[in-house]
């Protein structure tokens, strides 16, 4: 376990040194969040009743989404891992006394967490200071805050476990471009990163909510804004747990298969 912790620590520290990137990220995310909220304001101005969430709840949802983007963005991959697979640097990874899946999993967790921690606070603080109904407000109650944290961690694990499948697929396709493109465009939509899932037509939504992608940011953000309450929280939490386990088991199985037929590219 210690090796994974120190590995995590190292990637975490390395991630913290990219300050300019973080600053640029904060600015982008702030602008993006503001733009989305203004866009929704136009819709709400037309007919507020037609929407499943209150505008205030939606604002909170948007700001949290931007603040914790680094935890949930499915389009973010560690290009070093793709490079390792493509140019054969993987050789060194395999000759370490360590489980490759666990190591890469840790690495991705560290990457995302360091990014998120650098970026979330300025966004959260500014968003909290904005006037109603554009700003971010405290969660509806303590329970919601607690479940928000729990499901956020689980959602983060689902995102990382899903990302692992994309890395592993590269062992078989030998180039990440196709898998990445296909995964990213579909998953962004299905996870509620583009439009919050409650905004989708009911029939479609019911199906999408069963998929692993709905167990990512969809659950914590909606718990926070009071859109998911009561017993439904337990149901979503259970579903998240289910998907974390399934995705990790699947990833480990595929990784085992991949390593058996690994071809170290580039001599």
């Amino acid at each position, binding site marked *: 376990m210690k*090796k994974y912790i120190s590995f995590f620590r*190292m990637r975490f520290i390395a991630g913290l040194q990219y300050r300019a990137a973080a600053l640029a990220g904060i600015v982008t995310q702030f602008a993006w969040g503001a733009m989305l909220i203004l866009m929704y304001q136009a819709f709400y101005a037309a007919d507020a009743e037609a929407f499943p969430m209150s505008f205030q709840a939606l604002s909170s949802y948007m700001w949290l989404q931007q603040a914790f983007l680094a935890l949930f963005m499915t389009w973010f991959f560690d290009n070093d891992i793709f490079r390792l697979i493509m140019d054969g640097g993987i*050789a060194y990874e395999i*000759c370490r*006394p360590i489980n490759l899946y666990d190591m890469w999993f840790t690495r991705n967790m560290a990457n995302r967490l360091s990014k998120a921690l650098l970026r979330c606070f300025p966004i959260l603080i500014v968003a909290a200071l904005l006037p109603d109904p554009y700003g971010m407000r405290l969660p509806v109650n303590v329970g919601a805050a607690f479940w928000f944290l729990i499901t956020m961690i689980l959602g983060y694990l689902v995102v990382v476990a899903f990302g692992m499948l994309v890395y592993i697929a590269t062992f078989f396709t030998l180039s990440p471009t196709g898998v990445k493109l296909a995964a990213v465009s579909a998953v962004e939509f299905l996870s509620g990163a583009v439009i919050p899932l409650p905004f989708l037509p009911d029939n479609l939504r019911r199906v999408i909510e069963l998929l692993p992608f709905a167990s990512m940011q969809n659950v914590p953000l909606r718990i926070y804004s009071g859109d998911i309450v009561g017993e439904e929280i337990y149901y979503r939490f259970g579903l998240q747990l289910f998907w974390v386990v399934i995705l990790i088991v699947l990833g480990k199985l595929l990784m085992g298969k991949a390593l058996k037929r*690994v071809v170290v590219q580039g001599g």
Partner: protein
Amino acid sequence: MIQVKHISKTFQVSRRNAGFSEAFKALFHKQYECIKALDDISFTIADGEMVGYIGPNGAGKSSTIKVLSGILTPDTGSCIINGRVPWKERIEHVKEIGVVFGQRSQLWWDVPVIDSFELLRDIYRIPSVIYRNNLEELVTLLNLEQIIRTPARQLSLGQRMRCEIAASLLHSPKILFLDEPTIGLDAVSKLAVRDFILERNKKHNTTVILTTHDMQDIETLTNRILLIGKGKILMDGQLDEIKRQHCNSKRLTVEYEGKGIRTMEGLRTIKDEKQQAVFDVDLSRITVSEAISDISEQVEVKDISVGGPSIDEIVAGLYQEYKI
């Protein structure tokens, strides 16, 4: 103890001719060719031996190293290293080996080298006393004091390679695989790396297996040579032995005063001008001392030197002989 028996490994390589229409055809029907990277390889290496593994590009050197270090699973054959099968008990096996791939880096790109070392310490669970001793020894011998605090991305190739070698030895491995460790290094760094490897072998009895194209590496470091070509082991023998077998001539360079040299039987003139001559001595017919005494009887010898063909020439000769 490394025992390799009848190992074979085949790779599928997709091939097509150049051009648009060929590329289009390959979209629907891809042609694969099977390349035998390793073809019935067998050898045994004892503890503490230093073995040079040579062969032209694409002969299967790196593939062998990858099989031995547990990265590749061969199609057939068996390999037992210190009682373990590398690809079956990978994690246990790799704890006891150190690997350096000259063309790749195991150091983290964006953090100081020492951070990479400390991570390796945790990954290999090196007890802190052993780690400190090893680090101190490596830092002194490889002269890393200054560069260890620099991020790997800012190191020169020679500095990086010294760090790579240090990184592969932190956990005191019993076996060290070096895949082209001196590739791209300048003369000083090469000498430093060679000295270090020799030292390490003497002091810690580390088994070293070395692939290289630099014959100086082979000459200074190893006694035994494995020659591989087209995936087959062609020769396995002592370097001196090979030198003796494959060089039955010596080169004699003479600087003299006098009116010229008549060559005796078995002595062939390569060059003779301005009081300087180069001869080829055919050792199957005369000895070097016979040649020298014959020459010195005719002229006043001012300087004389005897040399064999360089090891590069010998190896080139071997490649030719085995048609690889």
